[in-house]
């Protein structure tokens, strides 16, 4: 299918059409009513006069019309569609995690919806696993929406990091350098950003069991306590509002008791209660931040080490990449350049303009010769 740089210019095709109509009308002889038509018939029958043939417009007129058509097409700038719209190659991650239903539909469904919203151009789809890839499909195969049988693992993204390639995944083990990325999932962006190994701990919490556990975890993981305003991976802050209440929280080998503020669950970001009682959360985690309701003075009874390990596990899972990470339901989109054109962009406007000029000249020449 031919495409045009200026489709509106095609409206100028009406000009040769009008010219053709005018020429045809001009070729039609004038009408004259008469009561002596029979006399004229008699004359015509005697071959004194030849019945006039209703001739088509002369060659020069046709050449002129063709030239005008060519000029109109040249104005519109025709070209082959492949010259501009090379398709993106979408590499679909079909590993099991893509079929997790943690945000309404599978992650693949959400990723596809995001893809179609963000990249409404022509696409071709390839499903890839760690060591193989399927053939390309011009339409997304609907059966890919169901979890595949067999051992599908996260693709080897390093082999797929190229211009015009778009990764469709829920998480990627590395950030693309040349490829584009649409990732929708729980950990979607965590692993594709540089880790910020800095944290903030509310000094008030330092002497508390939780504060001590955080400091121990940070030391073990190599996290640096921030002393300036630069971004951090995690901020652990004591809640400053909320009604105080007595609390008692039990772990497997430890018991925490004292008083705590009632924490309000934020509505605008995913959150998770890291420590909680039946009466509500004691520590509420959300991306990049812990809100702590435990007030200084609470006591830890039982195994201190078990408590620290429990807290460290939660920190390991949640703290990484929370800083400026995306909410669970939002996609990560990093679109680079589309695929380079498969062949150089080629316009036929110049060719048509030349043809138009040639036809105009031909029309003049034919007219001179009376054709």
């Amino acid at each position, binding site marked *: 299918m031919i495409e045009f740089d200026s489709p509106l210019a095609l409206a100028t095709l009406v000009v040769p059409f009008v010219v053709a109509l005018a020429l045809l009308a001009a070729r039609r002889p004038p009408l004259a*009513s008469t009561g002596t038509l029979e006399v004229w018939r008699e004359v015509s029958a005697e071959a004194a006069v030849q019945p*006039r043939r209703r001739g088509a417009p002369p060659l020069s007129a046709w050449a002129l019309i063709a030239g005008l058509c060519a000029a109109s097409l040249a104005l519109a700038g025709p070209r082959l569609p492949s010259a501009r719209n090379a398709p993106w190659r979408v590499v679909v991650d079909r590993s099991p995690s893509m079929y997790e239903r943690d945000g309404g539909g599978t992650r693949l469904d959400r990723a596809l919806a995001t893809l179609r919203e963000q990249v409404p151009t022509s696409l071709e789809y390839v499903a890839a696993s760690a060591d193989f890839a399927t053939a390309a499909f011009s339409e997304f195969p609907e059966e890919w929406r169901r979890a595949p049988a067999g051992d599908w693992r996260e693709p080897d993204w390093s082999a797929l990091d190229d211009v015009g390639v778009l990764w469709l995944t829920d998480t990627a083990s590395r950030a693309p350098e040349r490829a584009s990325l649409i990732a929708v999932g729980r950990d979607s962006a965590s692993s594709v950003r540089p880790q910020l190994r800095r944290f903030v701990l509310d000094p008030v919490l330092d002497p508390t069991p939780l504060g001590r556990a955080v400091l121990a975890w940070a030391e073990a993981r190599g996290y640096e306590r921030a002393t300036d305003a630069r971004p951090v991976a995690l901020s652990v802050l004591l809640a400053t509002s909320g009604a105080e209440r007595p609390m008692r929280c039990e772990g497997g080998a430890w018991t925490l008791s004292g008083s705590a503020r009632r924490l309000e669950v934020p509505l605008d970001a995913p959150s998770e209660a890291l420590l909680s009682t039946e009466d509500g959360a004691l520590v509420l985690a959300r991306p990049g931040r812990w809100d702590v309701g435990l007030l200084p003075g609470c006591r830890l009874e039982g195994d201190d080490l078990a408590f620290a390990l429990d807290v460290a596990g939660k920190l390991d899972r949640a703290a990484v990449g929370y800083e400026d990470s995306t909410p669970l339901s939002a996609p990560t989109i990093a679109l680079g350049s589309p695929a380079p054109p498969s062949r150089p962009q080629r316009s036929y406007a110049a060719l048509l303009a030349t043809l138009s000029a040639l036809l105009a000249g031909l029309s003049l020449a034919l007219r001179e010769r009376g054709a």
Partner: protein
Amino acid sequence: MRAEDGLVPADSARVEFSTEFHARLERFVARARSRASREDGRRGAARGQGVELEGHRPYRAGEDLRDLDWELLARLGQPWVRVRRAEQGERLAVVLDTSASMGVGAPSKLQLAAEVALALSCASLANGGRSLLLAHGEGGRVENFSLRSANARAASIAWMEKRMARGAGRLGDLLSDPGLRRAHRVVVLGDLMDAEPAEVLTLAGWGRRVEVVQILAERELAPQVTGGVEWVDPEVGASLQLAVGERALREYGHALDTRLERWRTACRGRGQVHRLARSDAAFEDVAGALEP
């Protein structure tokens, strides 16, 4: 202009009488009356008054005083005028071809025919005669108007103004009207290109005079076209595209003359009158050439 139904409308299908025409008609009628009086006078002087005299009637204001019977005036003290044979008995019938081809020309052939018809009938009325006008009307049926008195003149003009050049009404339908059998004089006005002389001349004889006026438009009598032209018959829509050159025009003129000559010869052979008129001629000239 090309009509949507494929037919080419004639140049003017209607009959219209201008104010100037009415004035010219009055003058024509007055001259006709005056001439008739003079001729009657000459005939009376030559043959004696008693030959043409049929009777008397009371004088009407404005009448030619030469018609006044002075003897009766002296004897009775009342003005009476002589009634001649023509006044008493001339029955004129005018057959008007209103087929679509009569709309050709500027002015149209029908316009001239209508003017001539009115002039003849009004002149006849002024001379004491009466007229029957015949033409095709709505739906191709034959319509007539009888002009017997001066009071009916306006109505006759209105009747004539309703004539339109349309359809392909057959002249034979008009010629077979029984009213024509009672006429002393029948004037046939039309282009008569699709009629035969014999068809018209059957009316002649038995004291009935037939006068044929063949009216053609300028483009029919002397076409001034060269190059391509599409001739269209407005009656049936038939057309013929021709490349017309000088030779074709000569051949056309010859063929047309042949047809007209057939009419002239046929009428002359039967002692009847044939006239050829161009549609842009003055009605006075055409009617004057017919007026007895």
